């Protein structure tokens, strides 16, 4: 894999991680708060917390270990993209920890 390809992957990875994380949090909330009520709030918080830790780590990978070589601009894009997506993952999950249940 060339330096440039590695940089493209480093730019795309946090975005894809955020997307998977968003879907996971949405699915967990839906599993807990819709009529079927498949999981309880504690499970929601634990599972949500776990996927958030993994997701933030994956996003920060691009921040703390950007691919060496290639273009400075794309390295900057990978670092800043990773940072914004890491924040966005934390924001996605924040409500799970701020509220006591589906009703707030």
């Amino acid at each position: 894999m060339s330096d440039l390809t590695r940089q493209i992957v480093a730019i795309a990875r946090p975005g894809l991680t955020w997307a998977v994380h968003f879907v996971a949090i949405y699915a967990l909330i839906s599993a807990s708060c819709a009529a079927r009520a498949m999981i309880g709030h504690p499970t929601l918080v634990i599972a949500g917390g776990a996927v958030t830790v993994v997701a933030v780590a994956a996003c920060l990978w691009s921040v703390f270990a950007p691919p060496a070589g290639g273009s400075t601009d794309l390295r900057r894009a990978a670092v800043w993209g990773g940072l914004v997506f890491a924040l966005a993952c934390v924001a996605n999950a924040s409500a799970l920890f701020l509220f006591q249940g589906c009703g707030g």
Partner: protein
Amino acid sequence: MSVTETPTAYSGARKGEDKSFEGVWDTPTGLRKLSSVSHRVVGRRFIYTGFVFFLIAGVLALMVRTQLIVPGNTFLDLETYNQVFTMHGTLMMFLFAIPILEGFAVYLIPLMLGARDLIFPRLGQFGYYCYLFGGIIVLSSFLFDAAPDGGWFMYVPLSTKAHTPGLSADFWLIGITFAEIASVTAAVELITAILCARAPGMSLTKMPVFAWYILITAFMIAIGFPPLIIGSILLEAERLLALPFFDPMLGGDPLLWQHLFWLFGHPEVYIIFLPAAGMVATMLPTFVGKPLFGYGFAVAAVVTMGFISFGLWAHHMFATGLPILSLSLFSAASSMVAVPTAIQIFCFIATLASGRPRLTVPMLFILGFLSIFVIGGLTGVMLASVPFNWQAHDSYFVVAHLHYVLIGGMVFPLIGAFYYWAPHFTGRMMSERLGRWVFGLMFVGFNATFLLMHLTGLRGMPRRVATYAEGLGWDRLNMLSSIGSYILAAGIALFVFDFFRSRRHGPKAPRNPWGAGTLEWLYPPVAPGFNFHAIPPVESREPLWDQPELLEREAHEVDGVMHGIRDGRRETLGCDPVSGAPLYVLRLPHPTWIPMLAAAGLAILFGATLASAYWVCAVGGVIALAAFTLWAWEPSDSGVTRDAGMGHELPVNVVDKRAHMHVALVGTMLVLMALFASLIFGLLYLWNIRPDAAETVTRPGLVAAAVAVVAGIAVAVFGQFTRRTAVSDRNLGAMALSLLTAAAAVASAGALGLSLMPVDPWASALGATLWATGGFTGIVLFVLLYWALFNAARRLTRRTGPGQSMPDFNLATFAKGSGLMVVVAGAFFIAGAMGGVG
């Protein structure tokens, strides 16, 4: 200046061996111009048609404002008012904003990237005619006194047969779905063009920033449009066939429509904004005289916005009773999207600060964009907050916000772009003096209209009311907003006048009139039928600034690869998607009527559905299928190599994963997967929120579903073996394996159908959605079957020579995608059969 090389042994289509370079690229004249596939012609058609829809929608907006100018007005009756504001929103969002921006992208991208045309010119022509015919269907509703009146979002249950019994909703659903084909085809075309056809040396890091914006936008269209397409098909099926997808009495849910609509609707705002921001990012450095500040930041911002914009859709549904946790999730994402947006705006401001901006007319519109869009963004952050959203919901505050974002974020850059790129369309410059008047009128008129609407909304005036009582505190604000709208309209009218005036009386544009750095200004802006005699190697993002030799010579004398023509064919350079290194000679089609015929066939199919003339639908479908077959039947171009100049001996239309055909197929699979995922979302949603109704659904057949899963795997395996065999030029083996792939597709479809037989689609929404999922998978399998048989037929009739295995190569990718859909659908059916659907 023309160069023609002596054709050598070549099995591909013969087109123009007796012609010069200019002759091969010539645009047909007279009526035959309709058969042109040139990106310049198709792009301009998108732009002009989109602008006509903009003017029509603008007149409708003026009718709305005239109705609201005084309380208790009777200028429009209630029904007409509903039709007028519905059509205003529909035309603006679906038939103006996205198509006109795609038109600019279709026109500019090849010129900026150093390509002679878009990679799929016929697809461009096909998309344009779908757009035109779809738009005509929607507009023709006025002629039948059946204009849609349910809002541009067509919410259910209002738009169901029970509440809208006429054809108005059908006009909307069928016309818009048809027109959306153009958006999706343009998305696939642009993704492929940007990744596969760039000048030598133009790696992704040296690509003009506009191409990044368009690339991300195109991916967003590919993923964002399918939910609405599926939603529209489900709603039309409910109206036409009484399938109860959204009927709460049978386990359906009106909110499912809202989810599907806004899954498209909110990314759409960014789909509209990003290309316009890309125009700003292109024009701004020209007038500042410095490259865009923070290219890396801008790329990060665009990518981030592209992703996060898909997590905002439910902020349009804050008042629908979603759980607080869900609201918080969407509120967080809605707030977070402000971060990359702000990064981008700071890049623009820092670019402005890095030099001495020339205050030309396009620059004025850029400044207008910055000031208006920032205000729209800030009110957007306010609306992302759930408590404020509940207060402002469905009020004129929201109307003000969305117009600040869309007019500020898109219309101002667009008008600036017209002034900037007008020489490309007319060969002449538009007036600086009139342009300043246009800007002044538009800026003042816009703010007078919409700034005040924030107050009107905060004072409690709801949206979409045809009139209001006197003395509520809204009278003067509405009066001033209406006067502002007339001033805004005067600005637009003056712009139109200036455009037409400049066609005859504007000063002739010199080469690179603005002193820009991007390649579209390499040639003098009197549009020829072609782009580059030779494609110059590129060393920077602003080649015209950093490579002075490009402007030192006449454009046709510039050195580069692909000088002249080979085999009398239109061609451009295919490149590696990442590095931009020359990879192959990419053969392009010549003018043809076939895409237009295919679009006409589909128009007949869609139009006849409105008239319930189903045998005519069948005729339209057959015409379209025949046209697609003719389209694909022509001889393959691959299997030979040619001298491309500058030391490059390149294969023609290489058979490789990096080939444009394969990249386009991956893009198409992305669209198909998004369509399929929308149906799966519907299944899970209905199953989750209505467990009571789900329990009443009959279980699908277990054995048949299991057989479908096995057959789905067989589809993928046979497809892959077909590729391997074809690539090694084993003709008989490839033909046999194509037939086996076809047989596995038939087995998959049959097994899925058998599994669904016990389920009554009319008895429950979940049952109907199971059938819709099976039906969609069946359609994909039909395409696979047709494709596999088509490849086998070509081999049987010896239309496929050595090294010409691209159709089989692509069939494998399509078979793997189709197989995956069968396996997922089968797994859902098995889950339903084993655990019971409830």
